[in-house]
């Protein structure tokens, strides 16, 4: 029995698929580390550039740059706002009920985001993934894809803006949150925050197809 045990263990260690996974895992870890280091380097360079262009005469230009960089998700931001946490339903299902109806869908997150936008949200994020003009929210199996990153429940949506406005827009009777709670039993908690921090967009952005418009001759 000990012999069998030993062989089985060795089999697992040496089987090609497992080795492959282990190897890939190591590579992914190394790549992640390098990516994080590069991110830090970029952040440092931005801070240095910011310091190098701090002359007083340049302040109006820098104000404009700040606004564009906030919208483009290039810089991390902070401010007051709300934090919305969505959790799957804990309603006990009757046999024959479709469990799919009681979990959070991409659509639910889209609608909460949209509602926050209507209420004047200035910057948004889902599980700390900055929401940009091109950010998608899609169901992939049990997880949700945002900025091509896989996120799992519970989902934490953060929005910077007037906390009272943002909160009341969500809590409106017959509004998005009402529907989610009453029909599907999805657990929603909304918290006003004095200070929220939303990180910068984590990837690099470059357009492959869109070019600045030039008049055609």
């Amino acid at each position: 029995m000990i012999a069998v045990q030993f062989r089985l263990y060795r089999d697992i260690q040496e089987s090609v698929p497992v080795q492959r996974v282990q190897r890939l895992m190591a590579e992914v870890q190394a790549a992640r580390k390098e990516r994080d280091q590069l991110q830090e380097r970029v952040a440092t360079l931005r801070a240095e550039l910011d310091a190098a262009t701090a002359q007083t005469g340049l302040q109006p230009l820098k104000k404009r740059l700040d606004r564009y960089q906030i919208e483009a998700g290039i810089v991390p931001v902070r401010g007051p706002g709300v934090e919305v946490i969505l959790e799957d339903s804990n309603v006990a299902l009757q046999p024959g009920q479709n469990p799919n109806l009681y979990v959070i869908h991409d659509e639910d997150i889209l609608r909460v985001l949209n509602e926050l936008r209507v209420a004047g949200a200035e910057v948004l994020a889902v599980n700390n993934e900055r929401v940009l003009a091109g950010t998608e929210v899609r169901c992939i199996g049990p997880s949700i894809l945002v900025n091509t990153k896989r996120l799992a429940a519970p989902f934490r949506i953060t929005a910077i803006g007037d906390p009272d406005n943002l909160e009341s827009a969500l809590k409106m009777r017959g509004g998005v949150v009402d529907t989610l709670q009453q029909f599907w039993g999805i657990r929603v908690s909304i918290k006003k925050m004095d200070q929220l921090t939303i990180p910068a967009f984590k990837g690099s952005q470059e357009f492959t197809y869109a070019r600045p418009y030039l008049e055609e001759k």
Partner: protein
Amino acid sequence: MIQRHFSIALVGLILGLLLVLQFRTANQQEPAVPGDRAHELTVELKALTTERAGLESVARDLEGKLARARLGYVQAEETIKAQIREAAVLAGMTRVAGPGVRVIITSRTGATPPGAIFAVRDEDLLKLVNELRAAEAEALSINGQRLISTSAIRLAGSHINVNLQRITPPYEILAIGDPIALRNSLEIKGGLVETMRDWGMDVTIETQNRIVIPPFKRPLVYDYTEPVAEASH
């Protein structure tokens, strides 16, 4: 006698432990589903590689800018202006052109099955836009309204507002990106557009070599948000 019982118990215990261990090891093989994991990891690795390449080019670019900005006031001003130009494109503040798709959506008059319930709603547009974003659209507009990160698409009364501006049917969505990928994302079998057509909406999708998308027309206002100065440690 007691000793004999004891040794039997001991042997039994060891055998039991071994059996359990054996079972557990054997079971370990099951949940590994190696092919799947290897696939997933490879996808992640690929994404990380592109991300890294992107960050490297950003870092190089910033190094160049930093070196120039340190030369003097004029160069610093030039550097900021260059940064503004680049950020403005990403922020949707400039007119852009490129290949992409043009999507036209109308409620079919008369033929609509149960009336207004299946007229085009805000969430239909919201979902269409989301599909196009998932297919990596780089710039989007609805009836001339550029979509930025805070653009809401919302029913207000009997109209749909985009960027707080009322828009009226037919709805025209423009998207710049890989035209084939954009079109396929909408026309996938059993997808959103098929459902919308079943509901009696007319949806036409044209790929085009050159689509022009206007800039966001209102000023960006941040009353609550401030940039966080990154600590350079």
